[in-house]
């Protein structure tokens, strides 16, 4: 005890200018004052410079007209405001990041597992992919993909179609099959939600039963069956009751369904002209069905493609193809609507060549129909009824209701010099997406691999000793533990992907940074634009990491 008091005394004796704690506080205050002075100096300079150069320092410019175009994204016109333009950029950034993150996750898991495969070849392919891609700057890869691959693809007319799949790659972008939601889709979605709730209830009940009786129940099987049954019922119910689609045709044609267009189409095939070109009668006889006509066309094209035909013969073949090509059904409808996609896909399914003549508005489309430019007008029942009312002779036209399922598969098809239908990706979007996914996956694959390796062998052995089967072992033992290791670094990879999407500016994809630079060039509001950049990216980063941290905590609960 005796030793305590001198220490206290000593402490008390330290003058405040030698007290580390006091000095620390004083240091911090001086530091803060210096930082504030520095910032003030910067801001003062800025205000002076801004005044000299006539720059505004408020955000009111966001409400003024932008007067420039944006190539893709949500609805936007050059007469919209700068703010709207930036918003288009934000949406594009989010879109590319979101799709990119999903694809990256898939590719990373595949490559990560491939890297651990015992098959030497698979293993080495994954290693080579990772080592090549992650050591080349993303921007170089983007330039290569965009300038040296996609822009060097053939023009639209000669689109590349890999393995005969309904994919069309050309220098104007990619056309892929897509799904289009129709009017009934929300109702079908409600059925799906209902199915999920029911399946979850069923699962709980069966789990309890399992626990009570000790007998295993095929929970997965019953869940799948229940889900499929409810969703299928929903599909048919929605198709039968919610479809609002119809077509308008001339009454004289006697059309009751899309199938009835077959007769009209066959009448249009000019068999006399074909006969004049020397086509044999036996062949002509077969051309009574759309499928046969399509096959004959393919045959002719293939013959032409071999290059083994004489000039005279090839002229004849081309003439035949022209005649066959002239026969088609023309659809009028408003561009990119469900009606257009539905009508076109229904006719294509019957192998009837379709020409879609579409305009941006129903008014123009209706006028085209009234002028007799097309065989049918596709649209919603209400739209068509209104259009019919303003026709010169409404009685000569009738509306046929068509049933449309909640989702339509929208496959692209070549039509003249263009590709119709399908989901189209612009070259810029495709290049950015491919580049981002390949690059980020190379890093993420290593994370997945490390995560799987981090689960010790003993865990597997213990699981086997408990009598778990392979899938149970993976689901209950390996994955939960691997995920714990994987998620935190994966989070930062997802954030990197989002931030790297800003490289879009180099290949002119209108993401936030690209649109922002245009805004800045047009208006000169450099500071404001950069503040918006920072605000948006910080918001995205923070919300993403907040979400993934939440998920991480959930997963980490498995830990003991």
């Amino acid at each position, binding site marked *: 005890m005796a030793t305590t008091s001198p220490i206290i005394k000593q402490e008390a004796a330290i003058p405040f200018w030698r007290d580390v704690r006091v000095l620390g506080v004083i240091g911090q205050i001086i530091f803060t004052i210096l930082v504030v002075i520095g910032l003030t100096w910067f801001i003062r300079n800025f205000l002076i410079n801004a005044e000299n150069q006539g720059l505004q320092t408020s955000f009111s410019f966001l409400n003024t007209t932008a007067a420039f175009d944006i190539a893709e994204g949500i609805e936007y016109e050059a007469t919209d405001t700068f703010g709207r333009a930036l918003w288009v950029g934000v949406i594009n950034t989010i879109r590319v990041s979101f799709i990119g993150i999903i694809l990256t996750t898939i590719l990373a898991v595949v490559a990560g597992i491939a890297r651990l495969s015992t098959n030497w070849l698979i293993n080495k392919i994954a290693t080579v992919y990772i080592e090549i891609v992650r*050591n080349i700057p993303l921007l170089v890869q983007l330039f290569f993909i965009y300038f040296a691959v996609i822009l060097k693809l053939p023009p639209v007319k000669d689109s590349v179609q890999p393995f005969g799949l309904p994919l069309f790659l050309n220098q104007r972008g990619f056309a892929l099959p897509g799904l289009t939601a129709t009017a009934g889709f929300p109702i079908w979605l409600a059925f799906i939600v209902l199915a999920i709730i029911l399946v979850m209830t069923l699962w709980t009940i069966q789990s309890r039963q399992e626990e009570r009786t000790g007998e295993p129940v095929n929970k997965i099987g019953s869940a799948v069956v229940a889900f499929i049954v409810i969703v299928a019922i929903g599909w048919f119910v929605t198709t039968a009751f919610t479809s609002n689609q119809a077509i308008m045709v001339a009454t004289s044609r006697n059309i009751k369904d899309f199938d009835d267009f077959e007769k009209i189409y066959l009448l249009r095939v000019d068999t006399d002209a074909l006969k004049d070109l020397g086509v044999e009668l036996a062949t002509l006889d077969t051309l009574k069905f759309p499928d046969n006509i399509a096959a004959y066309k393919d045959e002719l094209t293939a013959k032409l493609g071999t290059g083994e035909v004489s000039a005279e013969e090839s002229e004849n073949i081309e003439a035949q193809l022209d005649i066959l090509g002239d026969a088609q059904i023309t659809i009028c409808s408003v561009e990119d609507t469900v009606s257009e996609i539905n009508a076109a896909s229904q006719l294509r399914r019957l192998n009837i060549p379709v020409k879609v003549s579409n305009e941006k508005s129903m008014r123009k489309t209706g006028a085209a129909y009234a002028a007799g430019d097309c065989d049918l007008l596709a649209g919603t029942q209400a739209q068509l009824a209104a259009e019919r009312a303003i026709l010169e002779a409404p009685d000569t036209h009738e509306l046929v209701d068509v049933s449309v399922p909640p989702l339509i598969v929208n496959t692209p098809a070549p039509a003249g010099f263009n590709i119709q239908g399908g989901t189209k990706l612009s070259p810029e979007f495709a290049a950015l997406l491919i580049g981002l996914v390949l690059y980020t996956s190379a890093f993420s694959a290593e994370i997945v691999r490390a995560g799987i390796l981090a689960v010790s062998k003993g865990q597997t052995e213990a699981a086997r000793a408990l009598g778990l089967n392979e899938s149970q072992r993976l689901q209950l033992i390996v994955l939960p533990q691997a995920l714990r290791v994987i998620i935190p670094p994966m989070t930062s990879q997802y954030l990197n992907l989002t*931030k790297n999407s800003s490289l879009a500016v180099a290949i002119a994809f209108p993401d936030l940074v690209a649109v922002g630079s245009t805004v800045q060039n047009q208006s000169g509001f450099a500071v404001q634009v950069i503040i918006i950049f920072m605000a948006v990216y910080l918001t995205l980063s923070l919300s993403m990491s907040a979400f993934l941290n939440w998920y991480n905590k959930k997963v980490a609960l498995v830990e003991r």
Partner: protein
Amino acid sequence: MTTTTQTKEAVLAVPEFDLDVSGWLRDTVFGTTWKTVFAVLLIIANILIIRSGFGAEPVGLSFDLAPKGVPTAIGSLILTLTSGPLLTIIVLVLWLVGAATVIYSASRHHWPGPTQWLKDSIYNGPFGALTTLALGVIIIFAIRGVLSWTIFGAEFRTDPDSVAVLRDTTPGAIWGIIGANKKLLAVGQYPSEVIWRIWASLGIVLGLAGLSVLAWNFGSPLKSIRKPLVWGWVASIFVILFLLRGTGADTGPMQGVSTIRWGGFLLTIVIAIIGIGASFPIGVLLALGRRSETRGVPVLWRWGAGLLLIYWGLGNWPDDAVTLNIPLIFHDPPVWTVTLSPVSYAALQAFILVGIFWAVGYYLQGNMIKTFSVVFIEAVRGVPLITVLFMANTLLPLFLPKDLDIDNLLRVIVGVILFSAAYMAENVRGGLQAIPRGQYEAAMAVGLSGAQSMRLIILPQALRLVIPAIVGLFIGLFKDTTLVSIVGMFDLLQMGKTVVAQPEWLGLQRETFAFAALIYWVFAFSMSRASQRLERKLGVGKY
């Protein structure tokens, strides 16, 4: 001692792969039916691939080994061996031979080394064997395509006139664009007559590197020059920068070369090295700032300062109503215009200030240094590099006095330094966190002051730990230097874009970007390998 060895063995024994993917697939995805379907699909794929191999022309990239019409003996041999059908047959026969070997060994219950390897890694189960075949054919064709484009079908002449004639008939790459523009790609517009200065700089670096390798070699007699060498490295940066820039003279061997004329790979290297070099000390300071545990500004003072600022807010009481335009990007229209009465405006100011003070006090214990570090690091790490570069490029001049004109290159480098300092700080912080508490306590017990213990005990250990991470950061930065091309610097990538725009080399993007990719890859890959070696040598991550 024994326990440590045992633990070591245990640790080393852990990383052994045991995710039985095929077993999992068998049990879950492919029941018997699915398994059959999968096998059938795989067989069909194999048949299709092999069939297409039989029909394949030499990929439209035929090996032009006989430019004058008569193939040489070796040329015609390669030509035959690499034609589609033969290549496919070779792969198929090799695969069958392998399969036969494995089956034979299985029947004899005898597994010599190579056969064991074949069984384990090539013919691992029926699916493994079929997959190998499919992938084998695809890979061989891919390699053949790449080789014929890059070498066999390529044209290497650099003379634009003769290349112009040959362009349409050359099946492969036209590498002449690289050869003809090698100076531009390497050093940009740097004047040819003083290019020796770049060689001299390279000489200095190589000389220092050679000496360093010797001096740091274990048991080297040159151990005594280690310290001068370190200073030599530091000095070399300034010497080299002086060599590159020259003096103010317009002519002569030391004529000034403005940074606008620096370009190509030279610029890439300069930005990367200065970026990492300058961000190191800043990063260390930021890391220390973020780890700072100094007592914060006491509560009362904080509130006192808060009250002062509120007073200042009240003092700024406006006379009329104030209209504020607040950007709301997630909202349409994107600006939220509010008109505030003088009272509410002052109240708003006070509210925000009090909010900031409260947050700093609550989350960061009123530690101003920590606050600054955290805000800086997180703000920079939350945004993409390109926005930082835009900021440095367009805003930096606006934030400085009008007459202070800064070089374009300097602006970009400032941006790069700020950006990498934030990441550097996080790396260093990781190293600092890895130092056990006992080290701090021991340093204190020996009687070292805070600064001394940092300098002598903690930092040397922490920095040693993070050397591999810093190399990783450098590789990242080296790759990220390509972004400066977006803000108008002529680095290697931008030079490539410029070179392709020349009328005589128009449209050769593939060659140019492939070459740029190769250069970046060689450097980044060798650095990452070196970093792995270093990691092993330093024994980081092993205990």
